[in-house]
């Protein structure tokens, strides 16, 4: 898939599909993030490093993910 394809696909004019796709992307991104935070913790990354990688403070990274990966 190249950029032209994506543009073509984004211009699909059914909002029902398009809006659902947007939400599905959000969900996918959250799952990808959570899984990789968990694997980073397993590999010994600190919350500081995870926060730096995600562009948030170590406190926010810890607050959001400490329960899942404890």
């Amino acid at each position, binding site marked *: *898939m190249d950029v032209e*394809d*994506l543009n073509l*696909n*984004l211009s*699909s004019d*059914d909002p*029902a*599909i*398009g*809006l*659902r*796709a947007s*939400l*599905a*992307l*959000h*969900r*996918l*991104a*959250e*799952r*990808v993030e*959570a*899984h990789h935070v968990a694997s980073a913790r397993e590999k010994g990354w600190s919350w500081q490093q995870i926060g730096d990688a995600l562009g948030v403070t170590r406190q926010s990274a810890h*607050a*959001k993910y400490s*329960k*899942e990966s404890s």
Partner: protein
Amino acid sequence: MTTESVAPETLHAWAICMQAAEEARRRGDRRYGTDHLLLALFEDPSVEVVLGVNLQQARQALASLDHEALGALGLGPGADAPPLPMRAVPRKPRLRDVAQKDRLRITPAAKKVLEEASKSNRRRLYVTAQQVLAQILTLQPPDAAAVLLGALGVDTSEVRRRLDAVTPDS
């Protein structure tokens, strides 16, 4: 999941909310909506009978809808990540359970469904799965729960008829 065969008559609204929020957390949502409320209702075993589908089928249908929508953007089946772990939900939640700092918020549509479902109850915090389901059945696409019921091939008028047969006066 409990092993008891007889469903409790009423559910605590907070328990429904927390269960719905965990269904949302599982998918990676930051809010829980009418579709997640519907999934939470499967805690009452009679819902599976009335709808003719089970929780696994409903979750699978939501995943398929996501795949379909992502496919429309040109993202193939490889664009996926496994579901996230859910947390245990107490049967009778206390304030400290629902007031967690990292709780997910409810969508306006889901809030309205719960409010309407318990409107006629003396105790607003207690509601039956049937009351909530009856409200969900009134929703139309593009509402998330209505889209889900459509994807599952559930005949809403038939379900409403079965609900009326179970609860004649509500």
